[in-house]
C-alpha cells in the first residue's frame, strides 16, 4: 500500500495522476489477487486509494471480477466506515471523538467546524473544498483533543487553533 506516512498527505486522498490510463489503474487495483471473495476488502481499499472514492461503476466492475452481485459488494462496502461513495473534497478534516477527546472537549471542536463550514459531520461543503468527518479514535489520546487536516494529526487542539488551521487552508 502506498499510504504516506502520518504527517504527509494520505495517499487515499490523492486524485489519480492523469498519467496512467484507467486500465493501468485497474491492473493495480486487481494486482496480486486471485479473484476470490477474501480479496474483496483489499480490492475496495486499493480502488478507493486510486480513484478517491467508490463510484457505482467501480463497485459494479469489482463485483463482476469477483463474481459477486453489485448489491453484495455494496453490502460489504457500506458496512465499513472507511469506504466513501462520493468524490472526496479538496481538504479533509477529521475530528476525533474517542473517549479521551470526548472528555477534553472534542465535541466542541466538531460543533465549531459544523457551524463554520455549515455542514454536518460526514458532509461536504457545496464548493467541494471541505469534507468533515468524525472519527472514533486516532490513537493519539495522550494529546487529546486531536484533529486531522489532510491526514496530518494535530494534538492539543482548541477552537482558536482550529480556526487558524481553517484560515490557513482557505488562504492557500
Amino acid at each position, binding site marked *: *500500500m502506498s*499510504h*504516506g*506516512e*502520518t*504527517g504527509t498527505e*494520505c495517499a487515499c486522498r490523492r486524485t489519480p495522476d492523469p498519467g496512467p490510463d484507467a486500465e493501468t489503474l485497474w491492473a493495480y487495483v486487481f494486482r496480486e489477487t486471485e479473484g*476470490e*471473495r*477474501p*480479496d*474483496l*476488502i*483489499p480490492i*475496495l*481499499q486499493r480502488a478507493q486509494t486510486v480513484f478517491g472514492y467508490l463510484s457505482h461503476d467501480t463497485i459494479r466492475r469489482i463485483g463482476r471480477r469477483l463474481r459477486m452481485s453489485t448489491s453484495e459488494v455494496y*453490502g*460489504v462496502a457500506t*458496512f*465499513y*466506515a*472507511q*469506504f466513501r461513495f462520493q468524490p472526496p473534497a479538496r481538504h479533509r478534516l477529521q475530528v476525533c*471523538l*474517542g*473517549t*479521551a477527546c*470526548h*472528555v*477534553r*472537549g472534542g465535541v*466542541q471542536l466538531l*460543533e*465549531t467546524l459544523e*457551524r*463554520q463550514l455549515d455542514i454536518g459531520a460526514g458532509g461536504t461543503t457545496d464548493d467541494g473544498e471541505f469534507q468533515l468527518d468524525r*472519527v*472514533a*479514535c*486516532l*490513537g*493519539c*489520546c*495522550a*494529546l*487529546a483533543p*486531536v484533529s486531522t487536516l489532510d*491526514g496530518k*494529526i*494535530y*494534538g*492539543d487542539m*482548541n*477552537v*482558536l487553533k482550529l*480556526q487558524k488551521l481553517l484560515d490557513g487552508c482557505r488562504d492557500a
Partner: protein
Amino acid sequence: MAAGTLEKRRSRAARRWRSLRQSHRPVVYIGMGSCGLAAGAAETREAIETWLSETGHDVRIVEVGCIGPCYLEPLVDVQLPGRPRVTFPNLTADRAVKTVAAALAGETPKRAPVWWLPGGGPGVEDAGEAAATERPDLPDDVPAIAQHPMLAPQVRIVLRNCGVIDPDEVDHYLARDGYRGLERCLDLPWQEVIETVKEAGLRGRGGAGFPTWRKWQFCRDTESDQRYLICNADEGDPGAFMNRSLIEGDPHALLEGMLIAGYAIGASRGYIYIRAEYPLAIRRLHAAMDAMRELGLLGDRILGSDFSFDIVLKEGAGAFVCGEETALIASLEGKRGMPRTRPPFPAVAGLFGKPTIINNVETLSTLPAILRNGPAWYSRFGTETSRGTKTFSLVGKVRRTGVIEVPLGTTLRRVVEDIGGGARKDFKAVQTGGPSGGCLGEELLDTPIDYENLAAAGSIMGSGGLIVLDSDTCIVDTARFFLTFTQDESCGKCAPCRIGTGHLVDILDSVCKGEAEPEDLDRLEQLGLIMKRSSLCGLGQTAPNPVLSSLKYFREEFEDHLLRHRCRAAVCRDLVEFHIDPGNCVGCLRCVAVCPTGAISGPRAEPQSLDPDKCIKCRSCVDACRYDAISGDPVAVEAADAD
C-alpha cells in the same frame, strides 16, 4: 542448528549498536511515533536538520518510537561522544534549535527539566550489562529518566525497546537480544513451547484473560491439514493506543512473537489485522517484514529449521465489532464483519473453516521475553492468578498522559496518582476497559489491577485504556458517550444489542436533558441486564457495563440530573449556564473573537458581559479565555422556573 544461522549477523548488529551508543559524532534521537508527530516532531526534525546543515555540524539523526510520557512530546535526546543520551521534553520546532545547539555545546539548560537515558532503557528488567556498567559523565542535577515519576514504578518487558531503538533497524533489535526467543523456541518441540507459556502464566491481553496456552492447546487438539494464526491489531477501543505505540516503537517484538505462536500451534500462515487509521504502524511492519525476509526469518524453513511461516498484513476497514473474533474472521474472508454464534470456537473452526488462533498484539509481543528468559523469570512479576505485566494508555483528565507498563496487581491508585500525577482537578473516577468496561470511583482506587479484581468491581481489564475523569467530567454524559459509540458500532445482527443500545441512549439523553423520570434508572438497569444475558457477542453483552457500573457507584449523580435537574460538572448543556467573572476578566476580547453568536460584549480592557439568551453554550469562550474568567454553573432548571 537454528542458533548458528543468525550469529554472524548478530555480531555485526552488536557492533553497529555499540558504534551508535559510543559514537564519535554527536547523535540526536527524535521520538517520531504518531503521538510525537501529532505534537510536531516532524517540524522539530526539519528545524534541527536545517540548522545542522546551515551551521555545518556533523551530527547523526536517529528516529525512535515513543518512550511513553506522551505529554512530554516532542521528545528529543542528544548524545555527545562519551556521554549517555540526554532527554529534552516538549521540544517544539521553535525551541528545538536553541536547546539542541546548547546541548551540542555541552551545556545543560538551567530552566527545562532534562534526564539522561540509561543504555538499557528505563525499567527494563533484562537489560543485561548495558545498564549496570554505565556511569554518566553529567552534572548531578541531571537525573536518570528511570527516576522520572512516570517511569519509576514501571517494569518494561513488552515496551523495553520503545523509544530506545530505531524501529526500522533490525540490527538494533538483534543487538538487544532480538530473535533469541525464537531461536530458543525452534530448539524445543512444540509441546514444550506450549508448556513454557503455561508455566509463565500468560493470559490473553486483549481483555478477556483466557489462558494463552489453553487456547493454543485447543487448536493443536483439532486435526487439520492447515491452521492459521491471526494477530488482532484492530485496536478500536476509543482511548486505548498501547498497541499502536508498541508496533511503532518495536515492530519486531510482535513479529517474533507471531513466529513463536505460529510454531507452537503448527500454523504456516499468519495474518495481522491492523487498523487503517494507523498508517505509521503499517509502514513499520512492512519494513520490518522485509528485513526479516532478508535474514531468513520469514518464509520457508526459517533459520534452517523445519518450520515455515509467512505473514500477511490486512488493513481493517473501520468497524469496532471486528475486534470480536468471529467478526474479525468474517472480515478477513471478505464479508461484512458480523459475529456468529460460538461454538464452534475459532480454535476449532475459524478462518476458512480451519483451526485459527487469534491473539492480541501485546500477548504475542510478550512471547519473545518469556522464551528468552524462561517462564520462571516472567512469572516473578504480577500476582498469583495474573502473571506478568500489562501496558496501559493513561489518558483523560490526568496530569501525565502516555503509555505505561506495570506489573499486574499494581493498584489503580499507584497508576493514577504516582504515575499519572493525579487528576487535573478533583479525582472522580477511572474508566477501564473502554466501551465494555466501567467507571470506578475514589473508594475503589486501592483495587489491584488484575483480571479478577477489576471484574469483581464491575469493570473489566479490557485491552488497556485507563481514562481518568475529574470533577469537570459528568458521569452521565460519559456513559452516554460510550453507549452512543456502541450504538454506532453495533453490527445490527441481534436484536438485544441493536435495539437495546438505542433505548439506552434515548434514556441517557433524557437524563442529560433533565427530562427523565426516577423510574428511568430502573429501566436502564433492567434493559442492561437483558442485553448482557441475550446479546450474541461480546459487544452487546458488555455494552451496558459503562451504564451499570456508573449507576452502581455514581447513582447520586444520575439522581441529581433527574430529581434536581442539576449537572454538577456543568457539562450537560441543558443544565448549565455560563457567566463571566468580572473579577478575573481583563477585557482582552479573545472570547468576543471566538463567540459564534455575538453573545459577549463590552468595552476593551473592561470586564465583558455575556447574554445568556444568545449563548449557545459551545464553550468556545471557555477555551479561549486565558484568565479563567468564564465558567459554567450548574443551574437547577425547574427551580429557576419556580422562582
